[in-house]
Structure formats: structure tokens, C-alpha cells
């Protein structure tokens, strides 16, 4: 695909935005944000049919919900780079009077956000509601979501997972950021989730599993394949294997950077590993 170098170059800039935003406040969640950079760039710059002139109802366009709201830096960067709001506004992240709250919110009217998230486990239910509204509106577009793997420990998800298959909600593509890490350590140590694929399948979902969640071509391909299976009376989930901290070598292979910010020196190293492609904010 000829788009890939362009998308990778956007991803580079998104990674710079993430570490700079988190560094500037000495707070935020860089690990999961970096790990989902390819996914969100693929979604907003290629896969989704969406309108940067934001309307809350999103009729006739694909909609994305971020359920694991703590990875807001990657979403804010991708929204700004897509043209939803000025890139310069990224500098207000987590500051007082900002529209870029620590966790995404509709309250301040930031374009691109349709639901607050942060308290985990709520996004799938919300997305299913919007899928039903789309069906009632005879709107053929798709609802996309992203969830943390640890987030699936919240019971509400399984209420939603059960509902979606029982009611043939087939205009949803949920993605699980399967990095196998959460704040307190590895997923297996904190609360082993067992065989996630088998769990989703036994709940009646169609499951795609992508081992290379930080490879742009693989991400585009799995999203494309998933899209081809919508409207077939089954909800769809992608288990996207990603690496927390991907793109910044010292943030990879550990859960330590889930919610900590780099210092000045670490920022310098991180930026050197991700060249400026679209101009820093």
C-alpha cells in the first residue's frame, strides 16, 4: 500500500506529541498511548469514514469511542493532526482551563469526543447504544472502540459482550489493546484473563487476532478484514497485540511507563528516536 510511508510518518509525529504532552505536565499515560499510535492513525487517516467538522450525533459517519480513556494523549494528538481542533491546543493538555482533560470529556466541548471515559469498562455499552441508534436511523456506518486488556476485568464489559451477540449488533468493531500489562504489573499476575479469544468466541463474537499491532500494514489489514465481516449478524472484536511504550526503547518491555512521565533527559532520548515529520505543536 502506498499510504503506508505517509501513515508511518504521521505516527512518528503522534509519538512525539505524546511524549511531549506528558513531559510538559509531568503527568499522563505514555505507555499505552505509544502502543496504540499505529491503530489510531490507521483508524483516523485511513479506515474510518468521518467528518472533521464535528457533529455530536455523527449521523452518516463512522464513530470511535476510547473506552480506556487514560490513553488520551494518543487520541488528542490524532484528533488534532486529523484537523478536529488546532494542533497548538495540544500544549494545554492537563492544564487548567483546558479542553484537553486528563481523561477525555465532552464537558469542555472538545471536537471529536462524544463521551467521557476514564472510569473503566463503560465504553462498550455506550458504543452498542450508538450502534442501535445507527440501525434505527438506517445509518450504515460503523462504530469503532478501543479497550485496554486489563479493562476487560470490569464486569460491565461482559454484560455488553453478552448483549451484543444476543442481539446481533453487527455494526461494531471493538479492539482490545492486548499489551498484557496494567498498572500493577503483567495482566497474568494481576488477574489472569485466561484465553481471551476463546472467551469472546464463546460469547458469540467474531474474533480477529493480530500479532503485529505496531506494524502499520498489519493494522490496516486487520481493520480492513474486520470491516468486511460487519453486517453479518455478529459483533466483531480485534485482539491487537501491541507493545506498551512502543517507539521509545526505554519504555518498552515494562509496565513502568503506564502512567509516568519522562524527565528532560528521557524526553530528549525519546524524541531522538522519533523524528519530527509534521512540525511539533
Amino acid at each position, binding site marked *: 500500500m502506498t499510504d503506508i510511508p505517509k501513515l508511518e510518518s504521521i505516527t512518528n509525529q503522534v509519538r512525539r506529541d505524546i511524549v511531549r504532552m506528558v513531559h510538559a505536565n509531568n503527568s499522563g499515560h505514555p505507555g499505552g498511548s505509544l502502543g496504540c499510535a499505529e491503530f489510531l492513525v490507521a483508524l483516523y487517516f485511513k479506515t474510518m469514514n468521518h467528518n472533521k467538522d464535528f457533529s455530536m450525533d455523527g449521523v452518516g459517519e463512522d464513530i470511535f469511542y476510547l473506552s480506556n480513556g487514560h490513553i488520551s494523549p494518543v487520541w488528542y494528538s490524532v484528533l488534532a493532526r486529523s484537523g478536529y481542533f488546532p494542533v497548538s491546543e495540544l500544549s494545554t493538555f492537563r492544564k487548567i482551563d483546558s479542553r484537553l482533560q486528563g481523561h477525555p470529556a465532552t*464537558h469542555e466541548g472538545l471536537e471529536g469526543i462524544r463521551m467521557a471515559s476514564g*472510569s473503566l469498562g463503560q465504553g462498550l455499552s455506550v458504543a452498542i*447504544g450508538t450502534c442501535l441508534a*445507527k440501525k434505527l436511523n438506517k445509518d450504515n456506518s460503523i462504530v469503532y472502540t478501543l479497550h485496554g486488556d486489563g479493562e476487560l476485568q470490569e464486569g460491565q464489559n461482559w454484560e455488553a459482550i453478552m448483549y451484543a451477540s444476543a442481539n446481533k449488533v453487527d455494526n461494531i468493531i471493538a479492539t482490545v489493546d492486548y499489551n498484557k500489562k496494567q498498572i500493577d504489573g503483567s495482566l497474568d499476575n494481576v488477574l489472569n484473563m485466561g484465553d481471551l479469544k476463546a472467551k469472546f468466541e464463546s460469547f458469540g463474537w467474531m474474533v480477529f487476532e493480530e500479532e503485529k499491532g505496531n506494524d502499520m500494514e498489519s493494522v490496516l489489514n486487520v481493520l480492513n478484514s474486520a470491516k468486511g465481516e460487519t453486517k453479518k449478524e455478529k459483533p466483531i472484536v480485534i485482539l491487537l497485540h501491541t507493545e506498551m511504550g512502543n517507539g521509545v526503547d526505554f519504555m518498552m518491555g515494562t509496565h513502568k511507563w503506564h502512567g509516568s512521565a519522562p524527565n528532560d533527559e528521557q524526553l530528549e532520548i525519546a524524541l531522538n528516536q522519533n523524528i519530527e515529520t509534521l512540525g511539533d505543536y
Partner: protein
Amino acid sequence: MERKDTRSGFGAGLTELGKTNKNVVALCADLTGSLKMGDFANNHPDRFFQVGIAEANMIGMAAGLTVGGKIPFTGTFANFSTARVYDQIRQSVSYSGKNVKICASHAGLTLGEDGATHQTLEDIGMMKMLPNMVVINPCDFNQTKAATIAIADHKGPVYLRFGRPKVTNFTPENQKFEIGKAVPLVKGIDVSIFATGHLVWPALESVKLLKEEGISAEVINIHTIKPLDKKAILESVKKTKCVVTAEEHQMNGGLGDSIAQLLCRELPTPLEMVAVDDSFGESGPPMKLMEKYGLTKNNIVSSVKKVIIRK
């Protein structure tokens, strides 16, 4: 006078909305019969969502349905409409400013025999604390029907609280329901009785008993706890100079608490509350429970006598 349950008023209102507003959708967590949502479900199967015993998912779905212009009405018991799903309401409905109508039946002690696990007496307090949330507790069938219809036209989250037993249906049929507008029922000069929900009728009944003792009571139905009709309350209190509040709820966090806050700031006035005093309920026939926990016309009368000497 005719006796009817307020939950049937909700069902009747929803039936009406089904015919008049195509954006209204309804969700229920396995209590369609108890919530009287059957008519809507049968008449509009495409707009009715049975979610099973999964209230958290129901609230999230309702929030999501607003994205696309729907006006979702969720239905389950009051306890499962509030305490069980408080964080879902807080984040996905209230903070997100979504146009969801949380409709809650079997509130308070009058749920009766099922006992304290189901008798929420804290719901008004929880819901009124949430920014953006409107809290309504109508008093009879006709008013609940009118409130149900009215909230569809209010843009934003609403908590509508009603109950299980048959109670006197005394307000006008096809009344116009104005959110946040208190309804004066009896004029008086010696005491203001502010009542909500199932306590409005006992408040009216207390007027005759008080009159026999030479006390002229004013009764105002506060069907909307938030936003509170401050003007109506202050005007009445300026005249009577003492207050009794009456509700089927904990003292903490209820109507009395809202009125006390208002009066402390604007017009300090002696006040007594007829409400449950920091206690859970228990199993029993509804009216016997109301007696045991002090929520009757006689309790209103004794509270009036107590407050009037404090003037």
C-alpha cells in the same frame, strides 16, 4: 377517590410518547411488567431494548443511544437505577451531558414485602448531587404520567422517581407538568408543609386535622427536587415563618435537606422533617411500614405542632 399506582402513570406516559415522539426509545432490565413498559414494548418492538439483568450495560447503552438523536428512557427499580449504576450515570450520563431519562419504580418503603435490599431511601440524595441532573418525584398517577411526557422535551439527564402501591389519584388528568415549578395545593398562614411523592396526599390529609386544632397549614407539592422552586418556597415561608417537609426518603440528602440548605442561606426558619431517620427499611405491608417509620399524616401533624412553637 380513585387509587392508582404511580408506576402505571409512567407506563401510560410512555405509551403516549411512543405515539407522539418517534425519537423516544426505552430500555428495561428484566422488569417490563413491574415498570408497566409492556405497552410500549409491544407497540414499538424496534424502539424497545430488553437488556436483561445488566443495569450497568443498560445505562451505558442509553447514553450511547443519545448519540444519533434518540431519547432513551431506562426502566428498573429505583435501587438498581441509582446505587447499582452510580458511576455509569456519573460519567456516561451526567458528566457527558447526555439526554437520558432514568425512570425508577418501587422507590422507598412502599415497595413493601421485598424488604430493605430493594427499598432505596437514598436515591434522591445520590441523584441530586450529580451536576446536570434533574430530579423529579411526582405524587400520583396523573402527575407521573404528565411528568413522563414532559421530560421527553427537556434536553438533558433526568431522574424520575415513582412507586409501587396504589395511592390516591387526586391531581388533574391531563395536567401540564412544569419541571421545577412547585404546585400550591392549600393556602394557609401558620405553617408551610412542603411534600414530595407519596407524602403529598398525607400532607393534604393533615390539613383537616390541623384545622381542627386551629392551625392553618399551607401545602405545596414539590415534585421537582432539583432544580428547586426557590421562589415559591421562600414566598410561602416569608408568610408562615415555619416549615415541615415530608418525603419517603432518608433525611440525609432528601427534599428536607435541600429546603434546609436554601433556608439557612436565605431565610433561616424553624424546620422539621418527616423522613426516615438514618435507617434501612424492612419487610412488611407498605402502609404499616409508613407508620412504623413515621411517614404518615399523623407524623406531619405532630411535626407541625413541634415546629410551630419554635417560631
